[in-house]
């Protein structure tokens, strides 16, 4: 473990960039793209180191994690003792996350050179905060205990808040930033309660190694542990925008598209998935939690996909798609953990979830950044004003097509491999719990819907005739600094799925007792995949989805108006556009319930408590009117009276006290 010794430096480099850009003044960076070169350099350095560390861990690791930590807070006094550590924990899972985070971060900062070029003085703030984000996100990945993870968990939330509200003079952006922070904070509170359960139950030590090795030593019983893991998952629900805390993510699209790609698609929103995968050794002890995770995941996958069907904002569609795909990951992880409880040998759930995490990071970053290139060219996010842009944006349209095919799940693109595994995991669960029939169905329908809305998006944007001549005329291909990262991501969006054939399943193992990694040659794996009837079901779903989108939005065989032709369909469409009323419900809760209570509290404070106090004093003043001569108005004399009074009491008590 030669490189791992230096892994702690990985988050340090971007942190240096943050400090340098953030505090060294405007003057230095006015001509330097707001400090972009510093951010790119530092991120690139940490990418190199991250790749070295990750490859070392993936290739030479023997399954035992590399842990390095220093004592952050040691409390040893009287009868209470505990230690909080700060450290790094490197195993295959964190190695995978390191690659994803460091790699996409670097590409996004480079891409920002083009995308954010016209932002003027605001650029310095952008590069400072995004460097901070990269630093704390890498810190989150490397954390060696739950408290440390929570600390970085909150800090990535802060960066998310700052970047969603980057254009803070726009009221909508400021509002969206606030919403993101508050909604995820509800999840964070649950996470915190989970930490309390772990802290007490595992006797004051939150280190992964301690907890994973002493799962059986939990004090407090199964019910408490289930409660604890549920609460931990509550944190993931908020951060990864799962039902019912999903509604902040579409609003988060108010931020720059680079931010949406990096934070709200590829990295931060994956933190919830990472958290569940990370705490797998504890989570699998509580099958009820696992079932709940699978259910929330499966339901969210379908639920979010429906909202993407008729939205006309290119980024919003991608946001719903992200929520939906995150649901897939939770479905796989939950199913895997649930199955493990009954049958410990092997199941694909864990590998499927983490594999989809990686592939999704690549193709969704590609999709968002391509959308960014479109927005950069068209100066609008509204797909109704686009159309025919493939003639102007040849590269962008091509790479985005690769992304669309990948997410739709057409072999051999990456999305196919992992989505197939997710559905396989869900299907496997049917043997153990009938609920998985439903969840598998959700997953399959989602596959169909995903293919449909992604190709709807592509056709609406790039195909056909321009619907807005002005937009079309001004559109131009993205500069090189933008399309080169796109091209790199396109290669990965196509090819990252081949990791499956190279033995992803046998490398990404959850480190559970009795869990036997699945070793198989590439040919065997291929045979296994393509002799399985389920594979063809999911391919069929994807093809049908693409076909329908083609007929509606390209050939025009079916008029899109057919979806809103009857009052019932129209109503359904409006429900989707209104996000099933969640936005209104959130607002109602905040404004009517919470603010309403606060108005009542304010009334109690002013009228009742203070009213009482003022009433008493007014009464005293009236009653004491005859003592007015004593009221000179000089506080000195009041003080003198006080001193005299106190002395009197002392003397009185002194004499009377003797009697007592």
């Amino acid at each position, binding site marked *: 473990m030669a490189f791992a010794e230096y892994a702690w430096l990985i988050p340090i480099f971007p942190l240096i960039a943050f400090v340098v850009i953030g505090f060294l003044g405007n003057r230095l960076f006015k001509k330097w793209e707001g400090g972009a070169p510093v951010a790119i350099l530092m991120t690139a350095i940490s990418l190199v180191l991250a790749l070295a560390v990750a490859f070392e861990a993936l290739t030479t690791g023997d399954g035992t994690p590399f842990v390095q930590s220093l004592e952050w807070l040691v409390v040893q006094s*009287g009868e209470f003792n505990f230690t909080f550590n700060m450290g790094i924990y490197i195993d295959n899972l964190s190695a995978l996350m390191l690659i994803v985070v460091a790699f996409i971060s670097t590409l996004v900062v480079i891409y920002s050179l083009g995308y954010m070029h016209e932002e003027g003085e605001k650029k310095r703030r952008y590069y400072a905060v995004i460097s901070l984000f990269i630093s704390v996100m890498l810190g989150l990945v490397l954390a060696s205990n739950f408290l440390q993870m929570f600390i970085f968990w909150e800090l990535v939330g802060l960066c998310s808040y700052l970047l969603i509200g980057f254009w803070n*003079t726009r009221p909508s952006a400021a509002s969206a930033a606030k919403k993101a922070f508050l909604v995820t904070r509800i999840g964070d509170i649950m996470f915190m309660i989970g930490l309390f359960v772990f802290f007490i139950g595992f006797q004051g030590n939150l280190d992964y190694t301690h907890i994973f090795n002493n799962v059986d030593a939990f004090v407090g019983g199964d019910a408490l542990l289930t409660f604890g893991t549920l609460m931990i998952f509550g944190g993931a629900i908020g951060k990864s925008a799962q039902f019912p805390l999903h509604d902040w993510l579409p609003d988060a699209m108010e931020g720059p598209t680079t931010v949406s790609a990096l934070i709200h698609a590829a990295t931060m929103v994956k933190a919830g998935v990472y958290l569940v995968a990370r705490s797998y050794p504890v989570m699998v002890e509580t099958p009820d939690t696992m079932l709940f995770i699978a259910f929330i995941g499966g339901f969210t996958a379908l639920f979010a996909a429906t909202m993407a069907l008729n939205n006309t904002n290119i980024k919003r569609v991608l946001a719903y798609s992200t929520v939906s795909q995150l649901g897939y990951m939770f479905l796989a992880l939950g199913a895997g953990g649930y199955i493990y409880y009954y049958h410990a040998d092997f199941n694909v759930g864990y590998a499927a979830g983490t594999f989809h995490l990686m592939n999704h990071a690549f193709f969704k970053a590609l999709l968002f950044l391509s959308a960014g290139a479109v927005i950069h060219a068209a100066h609008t996010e509204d797909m109704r004003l686009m159309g025919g842009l493939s003639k102007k944006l040849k590269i962008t349209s091509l790479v985005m097509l690769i992304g669309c095919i990948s997410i739709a799940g057409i072999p051999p693109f990456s999305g196919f491999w992992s989505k197939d595994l997710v559905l396989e995991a869900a299907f496997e669960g049917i043997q153990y719990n009938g609920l998985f029939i439903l969840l598998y169905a959700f997953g399959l329908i989602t596959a169909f819907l995903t293919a449909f809305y992604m190709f709807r998006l592509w056709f609406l944007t790039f195909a056909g005739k321009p619907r807005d001549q002005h937009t079309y005329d001004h559109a131009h291909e993205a500069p090189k600094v933008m399309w080169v990262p796109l091209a790199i991501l396109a290669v990965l969006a196509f090819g990252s799925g081949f990791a499956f054939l190279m033995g992803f399943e046998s490398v990404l193992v959850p480190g559970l007792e009795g869990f036997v990694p699945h070793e198989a040659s590439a040919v065997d794996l291929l045979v296994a995949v393509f002799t399985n009837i389920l594979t063809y079901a999911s391919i069929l779903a994807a093809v049908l989805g693409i076909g329908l989108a083609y007929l509606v939005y390209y050939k025009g065989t079916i008029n899109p108006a057919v979806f809103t032709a009857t009052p019932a369909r129209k109503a359904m469409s409006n429900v989707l556009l209104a996000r099933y009323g969640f936005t209104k419900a959130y607002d109602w809760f905040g404004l009517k319930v919470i603010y309403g209570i606060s108005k009542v509290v304010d009334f109690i404070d002013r009228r009742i408590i203070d009213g009482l106090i003022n009433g008493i004093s007014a009464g005293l003043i009236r009653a004491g009117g005859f003592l007015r001569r004593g009221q000179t108005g000089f506080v000195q004399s009041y003080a003198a009276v006080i001193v005299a009074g106190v002395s009197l009491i002392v003397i009185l008590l002194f004499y009377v006290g003797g009697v007592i």
Partner: protein
Amino acid sequence: MFENIPILSLLILFPLLGAIAAFMLGRSPKAAKYVALVFSAIPLALVTLMLTEFSLSGGFQFVENYEWISFLGINFHLGIDGVSVTMVFLSTLLVFLAILFSWDVEERLNQYMGLMLLLEVGILGVFTALDYFVFYIFWEVVLIPMYFLIAIWGGMNRAYASIKFFIYTHVASLAMLLGIFALYFTTAPLLKADGLIPVDAIGTFDMQLIARVAGDGLGHMLQIAIFGALFFGFIVKMPVVPFHTWLPDAHVQAPTAGSVLLAGLLLKMGSYGIIRICLPTLPDAAVDFQLIMAVIGVVSIIYGAFACLAQSDLKKMVAYSSISHMGIVMLGIATLSQLGIAAAVFQMFAHGLITAVLFMVCGMFQHKAGTREIPLLGGLAPKVPILATVMMMGFMASLGLPGMVGFLAEFMVFTSTFDTWGVWVLVPIATVALTAAYYLWAMQRSIFGELTTKIDTKHMHDAYWFEILPLAVLLGFIVLFGVWPAFALDLITPSIPSVWPLNGVI
């Protein structure tokens, strides 16, 4: 290094000398502020030096004990342990920075500076006294300069606010005084029986001596009665709901530096009193009061947070947030666990640093925008970027963001709450979201969005050096103790068993 130097007395003496000097400099008020700055820097330097010598053994250190009024058993007895040293450091730091922040005050400058230093005398006395009589004297000393600071340099409604502050806290002091006398007279026979004081003495005001006999020797009902009297005196000062209404009024009227010291230090005197006096002296009564303390704490947390959301005056909002955050201190104490009490002390320290930033920010809004009414503000971030950044950092610290000092304190309080009362922790912890809500909403309406047209923003000036400097120091400490909380907690925790020896969590 300090073996033969009465450093705690010097700590109190220097501000007193400075105060006298400042009062006498009526003819050249400008000189008064330099005098004040120097005489507030000296205690800060002394405390810093003292910290290098501070032992982590947990007991009282730098103890001084001089006979004063010996026939009544009054000694000038000072000493500090881990609980008080954090408060002493906070006091010297905040007074120094508050004086610096007041650099542009012009009205009756020398008196203003003198009062600030006099306030420091009182506060340092309270946090170092180990004798009830000395404690009470200093406790009252604090009251007077604060009263004048509000009454002379306050806002429109200052007369009402200052009188309310004075009467409220004074009534509480009297309750406390009764409690002290009761302790004095009831423990005297016990102390004599144990041979701790001479048989012909009337009694003693020594805190440690009284604590040695009170817990075991006094009857249960008597303990409860005395605890009640002292406790009432302290909670009004903290303050907790429903005895809190003097605080928002006092803050709204007080000048900025006054608010900084009021929220940063004066409130801590209340919780400090509970930790220093109530718990170790009357532990059985503390157990009886546990549920009351918890309820008071939780109600203050929730009530304060909801009240914040309804405020339109930025400063009033921050004032209510103090009630909410001091409720967390109360809850930590109420757990009656060593973890909770240590966390409470850390929260006091954290709140002192953070709330100072918040009140300075409010003062700057008043100064630069001419108003603190949130509905009149809006979109000011591009106009005053430094102020906006500082505001955001302060708010983030106050809502408990990790990496800043408030997080771990709250986290530890809630951990021990969970340990004591299980899932009831859901009730107070839910306000964590509410806290974020009122801060973020206030920021959204004051610095984000479109630039306001309701006030004149053309001539707005961003922060001056004497504003940036104290804020930078405070924020530096907020981040330092957030990133490395052991700096503070290593001081605090060894002393906790002597405050509350009975049980531990883990």
